[in-house]
């Protein structure tokens, strides 16, 4: 694997975000949504606790909506415009291209996440939170965003249509979140064996993110997100290879 190629592809892709209003629309929507939900849905003030749990706990739901908007263009635009023929006939491997594009989207999301720092300042001004937990929360959220992005990148390689890519990514992401949600698990636990319910629950982003966002770093949770990202990126490379010329 040629690291330079990954770097150049990432750089090009990242510049592409800022060449169009996409980047600014995304960042502003993301900040508005996180800000709004932290105060009004998460009851930041009413809880009377100096932490950012209300902020982090809403992230999976915001990502479901916004990450597909970032990932949808990664490959479907490339296929629609035909530039994929150019990219795939340059001396780069498919996985280098997949990784470069994914890293660009991930870094960009990371930037949007970091721009929430006023909230962190606010909570430090109002009280004395455990900043270790908050840093862990940011890390967990970043990892989870990577998971959503890897799903979205793979899905966007399956179609030339960005709207279809958006909707499909949203649905797949929803499945990965809902499988850890109480109502869904209750539905299964009434008839399915406990092992199956646990398996379904362990597949969920929620289950693994919840612990990290509370400051508990468990190797298994980190491994979970790392493997979700890798598996979806490998699938992404396979899909690109199979569908690039269609």
């Amino acid at each position: 694997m040629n690291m330079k190629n990954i770097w150049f592809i990432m750089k090009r892709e990242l510049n592409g975000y800022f060449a169009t209003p996409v980047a600014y629309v995304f960042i502003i929507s993301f900040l508005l949504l996180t800000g709004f939900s932290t105060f009004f849905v998460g009851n930041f003030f009413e809880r009377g606790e100096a932490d950012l749990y209300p902020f982090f706990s809403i992230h999976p739901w915001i990502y479901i909506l916004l990450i597909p908007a970032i990932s949808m263009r990664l490959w479907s635009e490339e296929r629609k415009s035909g530039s994929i023929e150019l990219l795939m006939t340059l001396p780069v491997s498919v996985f280098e291209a997949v990784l470069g594009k994914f890293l660009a989207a991930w870094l960009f999301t990371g930037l949007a996440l970091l721009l929430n720092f006023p909230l962190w300042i606010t909570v430090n001004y109002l009280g004395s939170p455990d900043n270790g937990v908050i840093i862990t929360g940011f890390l967990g959220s970043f990892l989870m965003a990577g998971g959503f992005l890897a799903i979205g990148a793979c899905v966007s390689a399956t179609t030339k249509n960005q709207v279809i890519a958006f909707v499909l990514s949203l649905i797949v992401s929803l499945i990965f979140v809902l499988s850890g949600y109480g109502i869904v698990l209750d539905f299964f636990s009434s008839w399915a064996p406990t092992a199956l319910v646990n398996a379904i629950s362990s597949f969920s982003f929620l289950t693994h993110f919840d612990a990290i966002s509370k400051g508990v770093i468990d190797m298994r949770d980190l491994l979970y997100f790392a493997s979700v990202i890798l598996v979806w990126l490998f699938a992404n490379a396979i899909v690109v290879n199979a569908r690039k010329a269609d």
Partner: protein
Amino acid sequence: MTLRIEIDNLAKHFGEIKAVDGVSFSVNKGEVLGFLGPNGAGKSTTMKMVTGFLTPTRGTVRVCGHDVLTDPIAVKANLGYLPEGAPAYADMTPDSFLKFIADIRGLSGAEKQRAVELAADRAQIKHVMFQPIETLSKGYKRRVGLAQAILHNPPVLILDEPTDGLDPNQKHEVRTLINDMAHDKAIIISTHILEEVHALCHRNVLIANGRIQFDGTPYELEAMSRYHNAVCLTVDNVADDSLAAFLNAQGYVAEIEALSGDRGFRVYPHKGQQITAELSQSIRDNGWQITSLHAENGRLDEVFRTITMGNQK
């Protein structure tokens, strides 16, 4: 002569459809190969397999000695490719686009700067370098694609319809550019503009229905025409029917045909023969006055039609 591109028994099937069905040819350094054929004949599919974009159903492609299946990166490093329709990243400017290509091609620093400038200069896009590609006209987009293909001075160039969508001046410039580069590269260009056969190509491969129908020089291609070496003549001081009778009586004349809308005849020789000198001499011997006489080279459009249509039946 150095063999740069070797294509052996290449085929691509899409389900039942045999888009390319057993194509073999090779291209040497210094050679411009014109890839001709009607739309849908398999030209682009063949080029996509040579550049490693499509995986062949069977057959092998070697570029500068590297097999496209086992060493695709080496093949891609050795070639410049202008895909059909010249796709590019629409929101980039030609400047940032070419710099990205230079990065991927492993150029850096002064070398990169020089390569970008030279390619922009040769493709004549210097004055649009900082406009988004999506705002450029079709002709400029095509030339941005061309600049991208020649940027790293590759030993092999694959150009899919490089002059499509260009005006006559731009076509001329692109042809001049290709001719300038021809001496140290192996170039394949696909086209259905038949005037390019003479303007550009040293050799032609004509493909129809996924198979090669002809492989030879432009001259050999023309020689397949029924008009090849036919002589058109008008004669002044003799009646048409007595001239016709005289021409038909000559042993070297295979067939004559009255020219439409004009006096005079088109005289066909027996295949492969030159009759101009003999014909004009014998007419003058009769004391007739020749007002015009010219030999035809052959008509490429007619050859093209005969070869490609004849095969469809």
